[in-house]
């Protein structure tokens, strides 16, 4: 906000940056070499505004998503979180398809002038430690309430270390899944590695930053790496 805007108390809404998102698929390749593969799930969060304008946009977006989902084989569901944000959760094994579907949501909102309502997009990555976890395992994020935070049962079990030792540049906890969160307003990504009990694995996060630092714009201000507890990407 410029000094003049501040002086007059004017609100300039921050428009989202949508282009940086397309750098993600190549970064996913780099992450895979480091032992983290895309778990096939992504989500977009935005803040629903009141009024018919926004409701109209939501209806159009729903139709658009259903149509494109049946084309690309992406499955989707939508839900609201406890903070009043709306999440579009997408499942597709192809990271390119996920990025495309996320972009569809972005474009629908910005076209109607609701770009400033976009909060973040999240892409989940799971450890690809061979043999330890069979099949695609979505990243699990512990919910904030104690009832459903008995998540360790659903969290991937620690990988056995027998035989093949972890590669030198892979995350320290082989069971740690990591989300890449895209901040629309800043055009940057940051890693978020949730552990049960609303704690985060900072070591894994900083490692991801080191791995991707040259490929993706990583948010330099650590104060903006906000935790997404209870985000519906589990």
């Amino acid at each position: 906000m410029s000094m003049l805007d501040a002086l007059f108390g004017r609100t300039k809404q921050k428009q989202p940056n949508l282009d940086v998102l397309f750098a993600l698929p190549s970064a996913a390749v780099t992450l895979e070499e480091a032992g983290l593969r895309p778990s096939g799930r992504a989500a977009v969060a935005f803040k629903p505004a009141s009024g018919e304008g926004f409701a109209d946009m939501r209806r159009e977006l729903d139709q658009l998503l259903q149509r494109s989902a049946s084309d690309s084989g992406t499955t989707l569901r939508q839900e609201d979180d406890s903070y009043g944000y709306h999440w579009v959760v997408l499942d597709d094994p192809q990271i390119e398809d996920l990025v495309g579907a996320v972009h569809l949501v972005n474009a629908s909102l910005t076209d109607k002038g609701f770009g400033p309502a976009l909060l973040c997009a999240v892409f989940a990555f799971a450890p690809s430690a061979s043999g330890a976890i069979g099949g695609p395992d979505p990243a699990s994020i512990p919910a904030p309430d104690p009832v459903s935070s008995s998540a360790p049962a659903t969290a991937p079990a620690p990988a056995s270390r027998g035989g093949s030792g972890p590669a030198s540049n892979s995350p320290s906890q082989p069971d740690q899944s990591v989300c890449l969160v895209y901040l629309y307003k800043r055009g940057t990504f940051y890693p978020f590695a949730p552990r049960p009990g609303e704690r985060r694995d900072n070591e894994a996060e900083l490692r991801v930053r080191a791995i991707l630092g040259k490929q993706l714009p990583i948010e330099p201000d650590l104060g903006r790496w906000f935790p997404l507890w209870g985000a519906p990407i589990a």
Partner: protein
Amino acid sequence: MTQRGFPGDSALATRMALVIFLLGLVYVVFIAALIAFGVPTLMIALVVGGFFLLQYYLSDRIALFSLGAHEVSAEEAPMLHGVVDRLCTLADMKKPRIAVAQNDMPNAFATGRSQANSVLCVTTGLMRRLDEGELEGVLGHELSHVAHRDVVVMTIASFLGLLAGLITRSLMYTGLYGGFGGGRDRRDEDRGTAMVMAIILVSAVVYAISFLLTRALSRYRELSADRSAAILTGRPSTLAAALVKVTGEMAAIPTRDLRNAEPLNAFFFVPALASGFSLSSLFSSHPSLERRLEQLAQIETELARAG
């Protein structure tokens, strides 16, 4: 930058510009008058400037201390931090520190001279009474104050009034005890007394005008913050509901507590005034509830048309 859907309020901006201009004008005229009268302006300015700097740099700590507020970590208040995290991400601003005051009066304030060292404080009474959506609206209002640098603007704006008030008071003292003129014969003394009277008069007038102007500026900035918060959260009516709820509760609180809180009013979400204490709208630091609700209703209709 295109702003589809949310036209700015140009009328509000115009009025604010006028008030800022008038404040500046009064400032210049006052300083010129002081120099013309030969008052040791530099000395007075240094003393007041010292207080001003102190207030400017310590405003966050003073405000927190006087309310008995303490900073809370993300572990202590996860919901509060979660809401602020998300609002700051939406608005692309640096997250302020967060404090909670153990006080049953429902209120919130933001303070600090820059975005980097600002503090956002809510009372336990506010958190107890508002639901999450309403709390989000109030936090959005306070974050807008931070984004608009209202502490800096209002501190600078009220500086002149502070200076004029101090001069009036100190000269009344020295004038009363006849120490100011210092002339040797009768005519010099008369001229000195007349001079002192003139300065007191000018200072008093300046004080009155700048007081009214700062109050007007404060009301405009409150409306701006309401507007920004409504657009940021996308829910003007939720903020309106919070305003109604908080204002209703404020009137029901015993008078004594409220009087204690009055010096901090400039930074509050809703000013705590003793019940039955009816100031004319000219003197109040916050716009009337009706005016605020009216603006929020207007934004709601703008939202309905948007898209």
